[in-house]
């Protein structure tokens, strides 16, 4: 009986074993709370998983690289001890659409020469561009790494937080502030036009402005997406990306081990259907099979729709919160097409040398979206409920960086493909799955002739698949779009951006809270700070 009671009663229960749920649980356990993580699926990781779909071939089904993970988390959770291993992605390869390419690597001088090969003007603009962007990142980082102040709160603590924010912003140089506003409100195309003249150089830099978002590079709001992706500081380089050993599934396994080492327990195949309440307080959760677990702290790592509309009865919540969550935009537009390949694709301008030497252009991202116009046209289809005829593709041949991802000589290629709107007009994703996969593959075939003959296996992950497997509403990879009215003070809803909910003891820590999404961990970490502070009283 005693054992059973222990088994049912916990200090904290985290619903959802995605990377933020695991991060949150690790911090709570580290602080001494008996913490239980309940994961619906047979593996942890949420959207950050690696699956062996073909013997010897590991696929990063959804999320596929690492940049934004906050360095504090790496240290505070001792992740290195548990196998944290972010491998360098040494290059970025951007076919320019005319048979030529832009290939950037780790040598600054060589990068400038490579840009100069296309545009002498853009070579020094490249430095100016990055410096301006770095300064904006530096200015907003404190906002990024702290809970948003409650600007609607009246107590002295809230007012102190607001003062901290205003003081910080007051210290930002005026040009940096202006750049920040231009990025946060404007389009990536306008921002890039101020620096670069060459269409392919612009196209290369615009790619991060549309990831996961229903915007084109010419849409206002794409600047915000671009800035967000620059906030990563892997190994001290802003905007730099790494490939975690074993993919992002390898990373979430590391997190799980860290959480367990601090004493958290993780239960798989334990879908939570409801948060149990007594007198307006959270007291536990119920699983699909009726099993109940009790805890005075329940944390939802799910997205805001599920946190506020599924796990609890929305009728018990303030109407404006429910309205805001109902109208929050989730419109997923991203899909994955993952390949197992029999060998490396060939880019005609960079033929392979028999001795394996020469230029190494497959070490990082392969950016298939030659110009801003190309990407904007790909976006056009999404506006009218259809997928791109010629999609944008952010690809990576991950077995080049981590040979353990595929058998020797074989490869896995992750392709993040846009645009693929969640809701198709006049059809559905089950019908269109293969046709969509064919479109993506045709684009690859254009850039890498003979690509099709290398394909051993193809996996098409539609927005509906993303939703079904990870629970992310409408397949939105950020658990709520990166739109200005859905960020910071307003993420996920005005008045509820500080990880608490209207229900005592019920908290939120998913990517739909500040400063999610991406594999960043901050929502999990900041929520744990909130919970621990509340517990102290």
């Amino acid at each position, binding site marked *: 009986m005693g054992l059973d009671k222990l088994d049912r009663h916990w200090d904290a229960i985290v619903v959802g074993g995605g990377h933020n749920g695991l991060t949150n649980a690790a911090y709570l356990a580290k602080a001494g709370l008996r913490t239980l993580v309940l994961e619906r699926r047979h593996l942890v990781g949420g959207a950050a998983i690696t699956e062996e779909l073909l013997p010897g071939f590991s696929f990063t089904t959804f999320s596929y690289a690492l940049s934004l993970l906050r*360095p504090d988390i790496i240290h505070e959770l001792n992740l290195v001890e548990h196998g944290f*291993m972010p491998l360098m992605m040494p290059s970025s390869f951007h076919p320019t659409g005319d048979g030529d390419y832009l290939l950037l690597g780790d040598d600054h001088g060589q990068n400038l020469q490579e840009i100069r090969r296309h545009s002498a003007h853009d070579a020094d603009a490249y430095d100016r561009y990055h410096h301006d962007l770095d300064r904006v990142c530096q200015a907003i980082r404190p906002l990024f790494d702290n809970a948003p102040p409650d600007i609607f709160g009246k107590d002295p603590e809230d007012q102190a937080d607001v003062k901290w924010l205003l003081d910080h912003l007051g210290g930002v140089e005026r040009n940096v502030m202006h750049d920040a506003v231009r990025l946060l409100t404007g389009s990536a195309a306008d921002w890039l036009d101020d620096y670069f003249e060459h269409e392919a150089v612009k196209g290369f830099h615009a790619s991060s402005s549309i990831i996961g978002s229903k915007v084109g590079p010419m849409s206002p709001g794409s600047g915000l997406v671009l800035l967000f992706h620059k906030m990563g500081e892997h190994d*001290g380089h802003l905007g730099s990306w790494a490939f975690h050993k074993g993919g992002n599934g390898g990373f979430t396994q590391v997190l799980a081990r860290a959480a367990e080492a601090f004493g958290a327990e993780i239960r798989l195949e334990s879908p939570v259907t409801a948060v149990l309440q007594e007198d307006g307080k959270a007291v536990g959760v119920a699983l699909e099979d009726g099993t109940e677990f009790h805890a005075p702290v329940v944390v939802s790592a799910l997205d805001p729709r599920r946190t506020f509309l599924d796990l609890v009865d929305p009728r018990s919540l303030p109407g404006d919160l429910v309205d805001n969550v109902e109208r929050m935009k989730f419109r997923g537009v991203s899909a994955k097409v993952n390949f197992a390949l029999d060998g490396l694709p060939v880019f005609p301008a960079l033929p392979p040398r028999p001795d394996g030497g020469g230029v190494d252009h497959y070490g990082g991202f392969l950016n298939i979206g030659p110009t801003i116009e190309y990407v904007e046209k790909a976006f056009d289809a999404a506006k009218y409920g259809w997928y791109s005829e010629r999609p944008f593709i952010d690809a990576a041949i991950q077995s080049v960086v981590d*040979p353990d991802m595929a058998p020797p*000589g074989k490869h896995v290629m992750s392709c993040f493909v846009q645009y693929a709107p969640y809701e198709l007009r006049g059809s559905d994703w089950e019908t269109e799955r293969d046709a969509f996969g064919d479109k993506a593959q045709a684009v690859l075939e254009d850039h890498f002739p003979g690509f099709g003959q290398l394909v051993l296996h193809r996996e098409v992950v539609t927005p509906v698949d993303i939703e079904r497997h990870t629970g992310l509403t409408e397949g939105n990879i950020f658990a709520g779009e990166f739109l200005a009215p859905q960020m910071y003070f307003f993420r996920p809803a005005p008045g509820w951006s500080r990880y608490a909910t209207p229900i005592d003891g019920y908290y939120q820590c998913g990517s739909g809270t500040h400063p999610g999404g991406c594999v960043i961990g901050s929502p999990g970490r900041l929520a744990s700070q909130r919970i621990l502070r509340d517990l102290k009283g």
Partner: protein
Amino acid sequence: MYKTTPFHERLSELNTQGLYTHWQAHLSPLRYSHAPKHEYFAVRNSVGVFDTSPLFKYRITGPDAERLLAGVLTRDIRSCRPGQAHYTLWCDDRGFVMEDGVVFRHSDDDFLLTAARPNLGWFGDHGRRLRVEIEDVSDDYGILAVQGPRSARVLESLAPEVHGLGFFAHTQVKIADTEVTLSRTGYTGDLGYEVTVPSDRALDVLDAVLDAGNGHGMRPFGEEALMMLRIEAGLPLVDIEWQSARTAFTDDQRVTPKELGLGWMLRGVRDGDRAFVGGTAIRRELVEGTSRWASVGIVVDWHDWDHLHRDAGVFPPKNEHPLSYESMLYDATGDALVGYATSFMYSPVLQRHLGLARVRPELAPTKERPGADVRLEISLLHRTTTVAATTTRSAHFDPPRKTARTGES
């Protein structure tokens, strides 16, 4: 005039950078690609090859070969059986370290010693009255290091014997129809091997190794990656971690084996009676406990590093390229000078700023005592300041695979 190594012709074709340094007058690549950090990751995550041919190589043979080496090498060569190798030191007669090297014992009376500097004269002088022959065979062999977790798997297709090989063991195998020495040695702190091959067969053997590495993410790595790897592994380097006693002017420049962190080489010395160069002084140091320094690792407090830089308005640098100068270590209060860091870098694998250092012996961690809090001098915005650090054992990175038995993978 510079020289090239036996592997140069082929390896230079794989070099996209044209950046070389001179290592004992041989062209030695700093890097092969634009990203030395990528080369470093090849060694930590798959496999890399490094041309270590510029080392001096001496063949020592004859009935008194063991007698000579037992009398000049700090570590007792008599415990090294044929088929084994020793990492070892030699000291001056006052017990100060001159140099280090690896000695391979091929039979009772046949040894091959590698060294970073010319040493034929010194060894020759000590062998004068012995039945021993010392031959400089430096140019006769190339040495190719094959290092990293996949090294055994790559080499097994060429030489299945790789799997029987224990840490610091070696054996003769055939690669590309050439008799080579395959040893489980290296300078990366990882699972790794070295192939010692007659110079005139070096290219064929290299080609066979490169072929075998195809599909395994194998890449050549240069000196920059090597520096990162060896600092993480806590492996000292002459002229950086210490100065040869031969060229030093004062004892402040000199270190003893124990002070260099290589006290483990002195097994049996304290209570034994082996006569070797420097032995009397070393024995006295051990008995009287007069070591002035301990060699340790240092790990910088990440939080302090981050805040120090952010508060100064600059982005906290994480530079994997080692510093090329010594910096001072102070006690936890920042007042008293307690040592100096000889190497310092940001480790991408360990996600920490770390280094190798020499501190007062009482600050070194022991089995009973954790590391001590110290402060490392750094330069920030044209001023010196200090950042919090802790002393650790010097092998920051020391995976079990380095010494584990290998099997069919």
